[in-house]
């Protein structure tokens, strides 16, 4: 089977664009990725499009209606917060299978403001605030508090993650925000769902990201100069665990996907030079240091306390600013984090460059549950 390469990849600067349409936002990133690859829409043999908010509205086709209706097959994917990673993985699989040599993957989302989640809908009466809370800040707070229970993790340690990611975002011109948030500001921000304050929740933004994936044959033909090898692609659903249907288990699902990704890549966590992981809330990032094997179980608090996950540390995590500051347009996130890692592997990340990066990992997890992990390698 052919290796698969990312030949072109880009994202728009995340922001709020209420006057634009979803396809219009997606089309911008698609064109940017095509330009980055030095190709046109005429060269694409298929398109995989990730979007959640308009999952029944043929977003991929509507993007092509904006940038070029070539008649290629289009598949629209929805997989919660793993939507973008799923679209990318479908593109990867189609090349792995030998069906195509050049494929476009696009992720796009237009978000409202405000809380996500909640046990609404259905018959009868609203359940939010009656049977606990189904809001995302609370669900991920409960997951974080489980870590506190097992390992004594503190509010301050969770808050430090937000300080770090906001600091990283000051070096990323494509992040929604470039604002330093010192520890006291993070801890004294409005408490949303303990221990997550407002600054420990991801930012709802509009955004898009896209990638052009090619076969080895095509990469050699077009020039490997800036190509990035997709060393592993893994996707897992939630395996049965005792509380999963009541308290979504983001740990088991991530561990399952991580195990598969490391095995496919033939590398271990110690080989990874940078990670873009799913910091939808500060509490979530803490869990994934252990879930991805970046440290032993129980040592996540030490990872943030001792600076191992900062730019310049042993394994920098979310140097883009992460979902906490770069922003989290659900369907775009999984390709935006691939853009970030590719940018470092290409040595083009400017002030936030992870020096000498050769292997990087991306991770997203959507409740329901879907976890997508990719390992990317400098060629």
């Amino acid at each position: 089977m052919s290796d698969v390469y990312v030949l072109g990849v880009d994202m728009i600067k995340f922001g709020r664009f209420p006057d634009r349409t979803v396809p219009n936002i997606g089309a911008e990133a698609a064109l940017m990725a095509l330009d980055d690859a030095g190709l046109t829409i005429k060269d694409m043999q298929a398109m995989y499009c990730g979007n959640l908010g308009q999952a029944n509205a043929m977003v991929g086709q509507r993007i092509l209606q904006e940038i070029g209706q070539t008649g290629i097959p289009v598949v629209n994917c929805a997989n919660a917060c793993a939507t973008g990673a799923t679209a990318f993985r479908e593109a990867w699989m189609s090349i792995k299978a030998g069906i195509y040599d050049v494929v476009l993957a696009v992720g796009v989302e237009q978000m409202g403001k405000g809380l996500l989640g909640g046990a609404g809908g259905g018959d009868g009466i609203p359940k939010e605030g009656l049977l606990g809370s189904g809001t995302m800040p609370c669900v991920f707070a409960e997951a974080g508090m489980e870590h506190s229970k097992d390992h004594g993790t503190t509010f301050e340690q969770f808050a430090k993650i937000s300080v770090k990611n906001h600091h990283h975002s000051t070096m990323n011109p494509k992040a929604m925000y470039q604002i330093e948030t010192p520890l006291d500001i993070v801890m004294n921000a409005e408490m949303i769902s303990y221990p997550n304050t407002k600054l420990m929740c991801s930012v709802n933004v509009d955004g898009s990201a896209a990638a052009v994936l090619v076969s080895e044959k095509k990469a050699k033909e077009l020039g490997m100069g800036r190509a990035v090898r997709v060393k592993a692609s893994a996707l897992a659903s939630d395996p049965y665990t005792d509380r999963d249907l009541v308290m979504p288990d983001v740990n088991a699902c991530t561990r399952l996907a991580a195990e598969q990704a490391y095995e496919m890549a033939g590398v271990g966590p110690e080989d990874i030079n940078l990670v873009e992981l799913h910091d939808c809330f500060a509490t979530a990032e803490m869990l994934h240091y252990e879930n991805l094997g970046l440290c032993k179980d129980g040592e996540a608090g030490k990872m943030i306390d001792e600076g191992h996950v900062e730019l310049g540390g042993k394994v920098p995590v979310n140097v883009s600013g992460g979902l906490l500051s770069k922003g989290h347009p659900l369907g775009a996130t999984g390709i935006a984090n691939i853009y970030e890692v590719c940018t470092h592997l290409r040595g083009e990340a400017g002030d936030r460059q992870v020096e000498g990066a050769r292997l990087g990992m991306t991770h997203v997890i959507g409740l329901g549950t879907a976890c997508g992990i990719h390992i990317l390698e400098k060629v």
Partner: protein
Amino acid sequence: MSVKSLPAVDYLKIPKDGDPYLEGHKCGNCGAVFLGERSVCSKCFSRDKMSAVKLNETGILHSFSVVYRSFPGIDVPYVSAIVDLDGGGTVKGNLINIEPDPEKIDFGMKVRLTYHDALGRKDKEGNSYLSYFFEPA
């Protein structure tokens, strides 16, 4: 139109003569306990081994959050709790009759189920609902 008190969720049972209780469905092969009816076990994949069981009234607080911001119209703060019931089954609900202060809530504390009107919430037809809550045991 008659106004009735209905269960807030389908796994809350209100017998005509007797006290309300939570119902689980237990797999006869592996013992996994689920909320809500089903015929196949998602743990061991057995078919047609499920039977309804009355869940215990007491349990242990597994995890929680104090919710300070919810959707408009929802009273805050409140404690959202995940409870492992004694004898099997995990249930999520509000923990009441305790100060909503993270410092004052202990992991592993014993709690019990209690049943009350669903915070005055009514459906379009004006029906009242009965719900379940947890309180310190």
